């Protein structure tokens, strides 16, 4: 999405904020805020450290599995709710509740059900990401033009063909939008899960850094995480751009 | 064709009537695209003039330049001798998409122009009620726009333009978003309204029938770039039953003649 034609200069203001950060850091005004250059240096060192690399592998693995599960379950559930009224009636309320509920409160439950390890993190990612995927898929399926479905029927499409060749594709823009939002929520889920479990991946690193007031490393880790979240959203948006013409053509 | 005065040379128009709006040498370009080229027109006081042409002829652009909503690349517009540099109190605009505030009642929508001018609430409500009655919406004062049909919404838009008591009313395809039956009724009402109002109307439309039905003068614009190709003054008696006009020979002849002229621009 291009916004009013000046996307790049707008994000450039982040550089201004980095400079302001550097100045505030150099002046030693806030004890928790080291200069930005120190943070960058720390980030550089951090990336080379084995503890960061291990944590990243753990985090990425949990994230990927959780998201894969959320997509694998979310899309069929969304299609089910989009096509079958009774499923929508019975499940819709709960999906909507969980999509906007404070899911962080559920993480302690995950911890006792799945133990203090990777499985809890995977479950947290899944729980944060799945609902929005269901909702968007449902919305996409709902918006499939009825005449498109009638067309497929009149040319003798079987039920599986109808779903595989018409509905899934016609709903693709919304499904991808749901996946993108699910990914962003999944990043939040992995971080919240790891912070609460506190002995896995980035959560353990955050715990160490903030407990020992190693602020440069704390901020470095934060920036890496933020950059990662942005990168993921960017990637999925590239894919979305490729199917955008569907959305345009459907109007 | 004796009854239909057709002037072939638009640049040499001199109406005996006093012109209230004068358009001189208006040009408008968007980047490399030339939308309007050297438009020269006079709009006589108290008459209804239609700007008619196929899509892309710049008729709405010209209307918005007269309204002062967009600037021209060259040329000038004067209203009552004063040069237009922006919207003014002597002109009121009726929008194609109605432009009604969905959060406001019919009464407040109609009174909005007066509200912006700082007219007191009691006074502006009274004026608004009067014009709501004139456009035939009495009893709907406290309804919201979404409760009205397209035709009724545009009546609100018209009442709003009438209530600010501007001398010139600018109507941008006001009936294009109104369904066929309502449009016809609305056209009849418009004929009645303007005989009572004695205001100058400038009316943009792409419907030949509509233009011939309601206009004193029709300015035909040709597309790419928009130029004045013809000015027609249909001589139709509108005093009697409005339904009769549709069967009037002059009406039918004029419609046919304009269609023959416009045909070349339709792909």
């Amino acid at each position, binding site marked *: 999405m291009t916004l009013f034609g000046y996307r790049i200069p707008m994000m450039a*203001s*982040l550089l201004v904020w980095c400079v302001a950060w550097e100045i505030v850091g150099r002046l030693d005004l806030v004890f928790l805020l080291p200069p930005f250059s120190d943070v960058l240096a720390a980030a550089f060192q951090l990336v080379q450290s084995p503890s960061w690399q291990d944590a990243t592998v753990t985090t990425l693995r949990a994230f990927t599995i959780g998201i894969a599960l959320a997509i694998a379950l979310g899309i069929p559930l969304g299609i089910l709710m989009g096509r079958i009224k009774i499923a929508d009636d019975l499940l819709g309320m709960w999906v*909507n509740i969980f999509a906007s509920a404070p899911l962080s409160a559920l993480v302690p439950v995950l911890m006792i059900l799945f133990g203090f390890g990777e499985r809890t993190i995977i479950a947290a990612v899944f729980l944060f990401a799945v609902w929005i995927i269901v909702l968007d898929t449902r919305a996409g399926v709902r918006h499939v033009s009825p005449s498109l479905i009638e067309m497929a029927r009149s040319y003798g499409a079987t039920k599986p063909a109808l779903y595989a060749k018409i509905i899934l594709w016609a709903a693709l823009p919304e499904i991808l*939008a749901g996946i993108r939002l699910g990914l962003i929520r999944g990043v939040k889920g992995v971080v*919240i899960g790891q912070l609460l479990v506190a002995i896995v991946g980035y959560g353990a690193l955050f715990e160490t850094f903030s407990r020992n007031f190693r602020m440069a490393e704390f901020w470095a880790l934060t920036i890496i995480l933020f950059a990662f979240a*942005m990168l993921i959203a960017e990637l999925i*948006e590239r894919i979305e751009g490729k199917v955008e013409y569907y959305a345009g053509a459907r109007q | 064709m004796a009854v239909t005065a057709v002037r072939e040379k638009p640049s040499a128009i001199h109406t005996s009537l006093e012109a209230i709006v004068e358009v001189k040498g208006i040009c408008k370009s968007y980047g490399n695209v030339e939308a309007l080229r050297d438009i020269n027109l006079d709009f006589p006081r108290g008459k209804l003039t239609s700007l008619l042409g196929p899509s892309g002829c710049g008729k709405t652009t010209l209307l918005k330049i007269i309204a002062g909503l967009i600037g021209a690349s060259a040329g000038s517009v004067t209203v009552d001798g004063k040069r237009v540099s922006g*919207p003014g109190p002597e002109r009121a605009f009726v929008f194609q998409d109605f432009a009604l505030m969905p959060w406001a009642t019919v009464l407040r929508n109609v009174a909005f*122009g007066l509200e912006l001018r700082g007219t007191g609430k009691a006074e502006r409500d009274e004026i608004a009620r009067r014009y709501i009655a004139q456009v035939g919406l009495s009893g709907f004062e406290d309804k*919201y726009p979404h409760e009205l049909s397209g035709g009724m919404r545009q009546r609100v838009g018209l009442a709003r333009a009438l209530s600010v008591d501007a001398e010139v009313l600018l109507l941008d395809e006001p009936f294009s978003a109104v369904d066929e039956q309502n449009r016809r009724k609305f056209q009849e009402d418009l004929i009645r309204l303007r005989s009572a109002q004695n205001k100058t109307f400038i009316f943009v439309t792409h419907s030949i029938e509509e233009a011939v039905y309601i206009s004193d003068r029709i300015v035909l614009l040709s597309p790419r770039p928009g130029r004045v190709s013809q000015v027609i003054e249909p001589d139709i008696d509108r005093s009697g039953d409005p339904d009769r006009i549709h069967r009037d020979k002059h009406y039918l002849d004029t419609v046919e003649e304009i269609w023959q002229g416009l045909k070349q621009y339709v792909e």
Partner: protein
Amino acid sequence: MATNIRAESEATHLALPVSSDTAGRLRDRPIILRLVSIALFAGIWEIAGRIPVSFAFPTFSDTIAAFFGLIADGSMPTAYLSTLQPLVLGILLSAFLGVGIGIVCGLSRTGEWLLIPVFIVLQAAPVAAFIPLVTFVYGIGMTAKTIAVMILALPVIVLNTYKAVRNVNESLLVMCRSFLGTRWQTITRIVLPDASPVIFAGLRLGVAAGFVGVVLAELLITPTGIGDLITFHRSRADYAEMYATIASIIALSTLTLVFLQWIEVRVFRPEKRGT
């Protein structure tokens, strides 16, 4: 950095289809279906608890009993008193600050350029990582919790307000100009009324985010309130009490969101009534 502007669309994306769905559905659905849906949920929970799927999975009936127990012994009301204060304060501050910043950014190109990218980053990024830090700086009191609420709620509110103000109906702006509206009149009579539904939807999302913030702050460090009640009962293996507490906060958050939607329809947008 194409992402970042796109990420901002999450705000309205969630605001319009999803949340209006939430409450819209909860309201419009025939009451019987909703009851069946609740009964079904409770039934599955009860069965899963009786099997049991895990030693740490109480039945629905035990959880309900535990809920009334917690209310009776006063521990849940006390916990809510401590949780709701920073939550309400944080949301009120975020609402005023967020709507203010959003309007300024929507109207001023400079404000937009300077501030919107920051909020886009904060919206897309896992800001929960800051909460431990906040607790270190401000201790374990009310201040830390309020700030935790604000860092989660503010970006959504700012971005929704900003987007609402930027996307005001163009034809109403032209209409206001043609009737000689001044800039101030345009802002107060067209921009703000037209933007108010999306702004309000942003506030609703802000409230949802605020719940996450306060629970997270309490779970992570601050040993007070609902978060503490959850942690305490987990440590004593009182699973029914723990589940009851968690269910109560999720229910409270849902009811709050539905209530806000109801207010929006009744008070803010009278023209929606009866449609």
